[in-house]
């Protein structure tokens, strides 16, 4: 199946800092999603982004499908951004998740 690798595995930021999270995948895909898992375990959809760039407030994402990677940008980070960020690509009907980037934003 398609391998999904995320980097970095862990990240600590001071409030207000910017960061870039990366997701590499081993084969071409027609769907890619970014999720935020909050400290309570809820998986929240951030972006459905098979290609191109999307922005939502302080977050934006870019997928370059031909080069098999996607980037998630977090600007002016806040403590509420803490949690685990997952990217996921389809394998058949299911989503295959990366291992996530664990983000801690400190005051």
């Amino acid at each position, binding site marked *: 199946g398609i391998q999904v690798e995320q980097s970095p595995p862990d990240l600590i930021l001071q409030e207000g800092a910017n960061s870039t999270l990366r997701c590499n995948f081993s084969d071409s895909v027609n769907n890619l*999603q970014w999720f935020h898992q909050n400290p309570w375990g809820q998986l929240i959809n951030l972006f459905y982004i*098979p290609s191109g760039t999307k922005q939502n407030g302080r977050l934006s994402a870019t997928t370059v499908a031909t080069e098999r990677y996607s980037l998630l940008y977090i600007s002016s980070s806040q403590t509420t951004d803490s949690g685990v960020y997952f990217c996921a690509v389809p394998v058949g009907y*299911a*989503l295959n*998740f990366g291992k996530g980037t664990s983000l801690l934003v400190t005051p």
Partner: protein
Amino acid sequence: GAGVSQSPSNKVTEKGKDVELRCDPISGHTALYWYRQSLGQGLEFLIYFQGNSAPDKSGLPSDRFSAERTGGSVSTLTIQRTQQEDSAVYLCASSSNGLVYEQYFGPGTRLTVT
């Protein structure tokens, strides 16, 4: 409802007992998925339902696991003779179609087998 709902939110059971976990998808969503999130294992696909088609059970880890979906809506995941390694968060998701559409996740059921 507005989102995917799951019940119970937490379940503690003794090894060897059977458990049932419930998922209510977003109204109108035809596709429903079960995943499991274990410590150190990440998120694993378990089973997929699409409309009235036969489910894709390729992710179920053993024959102790089964799921059904009644009337194309609510789904129940059943684990028989639970083992300690079944302890995990069980997540349900739904989407408006099966293949390339955005999946929306419920809050999960945290299962602890003692």
